[in-house]
């Protein structure tokens, strides 16, 4: 995970450089089964980060609206421009409405 020429300057950054804290191989992007979201550092999927807060999408429900709206991850959450302009009708507050969402398209 360490990038060439970059040096960790604080405790948390130093922890991030330790491979073992991830509990994963270096090539996290390709060591997960297909269908995983590899775009997030360590993956939205597991977030085995060194310290709390454990990850950028923890909890997932907290970031759900941001990922669909301003951040707009169309393969991971219902995007609000192209495919699911009305997605918030299903989940005004994801942490409460998660039981009722349905963005599956199967034909």
């Amino acid at each position, binding site marked *: 995970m360490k990038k060439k020429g970059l040096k960790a300057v604080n405790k948390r950054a130093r922890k991030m450089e330790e491979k073992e804290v991830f509990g994963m191989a270096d090539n996290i992007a390709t*060591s997960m089964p297909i269908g995983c*979201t*590899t775009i997030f550092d360590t993956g939205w999927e*597991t977030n085995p980060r*060194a310290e709390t807060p454990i990850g950028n999408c923890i909890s997932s429900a907290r970031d759900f609206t941001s990922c669909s709206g301003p951040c*707009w991850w169309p*393969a991971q959450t219902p995007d609000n421009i192209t495919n699911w302009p009305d997605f918030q009708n299903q989940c005004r507050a994801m*942490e409460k409405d*998660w*039981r009722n969402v349905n963005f599956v398209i199967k034909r």
Partner: protein
Amino acid sequence: MREFKPIGFILGLLGVFILAGTPVRGEVLFPDGSMIKQKCSACHKPDPQGNLDVLEHTRKSTEEWKAVVDRMVRLNSLPLENENFHPVIKELSDKLCLSPKEMEAVAYLNSDENSQYREIPKDKLEERIFTACVRCHTYGKIVSHKNTPEQWAEARNLHLGYYPTVIPQMREMDWAVESKDLIEPLAKLFPFDNPEWKTWMQNRKAVDLSGEWTVAGYQPGMGFYEGTYVIKADAAAGKDEYLINKELRYGNGKVLKSSGKGTLFSQFHLRYALSNADKSLTEGVFDLKAEDMAFQGKWWDVVQDKNVYGNESFAKAGSTAKILCAYPEALQTGKTHKVTLIGANLPGVKAADIVFSTPGLTVTKVTQTGATKLVCDVNVKADAGTGVVGVKVGTIAYDNAMKVYAKMDAIKVLPEIGRARVSCGPAYPAQGVQFVARGISAGPDGKVGTEDDIVLNPVDAKWSLAEEKTRENDDDLKYLTTSVANGLYTPITTYGPIPERVQKVEGVGLIKIVASYNKLESSSRLAVVPTDFIPQIK
């Protein structure tokens, strides 16, 4: 060739208009009466030769045609009635498909279970494609498309138009430049014009699946099974539509009966949906090797809280004699084993007619013979040597039939990393992972964990869960713990935030699953992750 003699300027102009919509030479893929011409040509205008714009410069798997046509309906206002969706996919898949060889490379992607398949880039170019594309998509999705260079460029344009935030999201690279640079390599790797596909299309023959088929397969957690498919043409539903009855008989005596409907796309790609006797639903996707009249593929339970699936082959009764499956997969030296061979059109044989590729294995007795099943006792000498062996039944050869080993040195849990998903209401049931513990023989070098290890039969292991400590105060196991029967882990946690967890994290985490067998132990990592909200983009 249609001859056209313009008389004057006006008639000449008129002629141009007529020619623009009329096939004048070569084969027209979608003639006027075709569903595609009727439904798609309002936007995809025919060129003077009658070829539809864009559409006829791209080929895809049936599964990708579904995704594309669905997008046309949802985003481009294609007025396609629900009942016409299936015929449109059939017609597109018939004319603009992948060859069986091309499909083989992406067959792992066509099933819809919680697949644990891992894609690994094999060279620098694939690494570039992975970096630019395989963060939202699978590599298999890209390989499922075969386009002209112009249409690969259009695929990039589509992303810039529909998903413009790809630029800031992929900000550690210049995605606009990198994706442009990848057009040429993609067009070479996955070209529309592939001589192999053209030759196959020219030689392709219509196949009739009606009849009885012998099936043999393996379901992780349940073991090997055999059985039959009885397939009948569903004349009322149309060409290449079938009624399917399936009966599976497992080694433990369980019998599973199912029935339903299936469609043969592109004359080789079978998809079916069956109802099982226990009310569960099964889907399957299989590709036909026409010269053998044998299918290979996968079926899975539609509701995946148990992640039940099976890999299987089935061959038509009366087709070329062949062996589909042999089990057990591994035989220990110095013992006599009961070996079962499943196949089609097998001859009646005596013990002397079954010969293994190494003299250390001899058939001492044939206990059951039949056209589809052959059971025999195989003696493996103590000095038979180890490794992969083939078998010949009369003149029918079956390479890589089984493995011979001297001693089980270790066990190994597979997959090495399992990815389960939490449930999130009725639309998103939990997705479990079926782990299997198999014996390992160290192989010639005497060391476990090296390339020459021989992977043996599944073992009846005891299963437990353990923490995979990845941070201070790692509390994943506390929430993810549940009973694991027969290697099957199904999350009991949901997408709902857990109030007492740090930052109200939902029931996700990274733990270990441990198998123990005869003082041998092995573990795999188990990632329990959030819901896949958009399963259609994979």
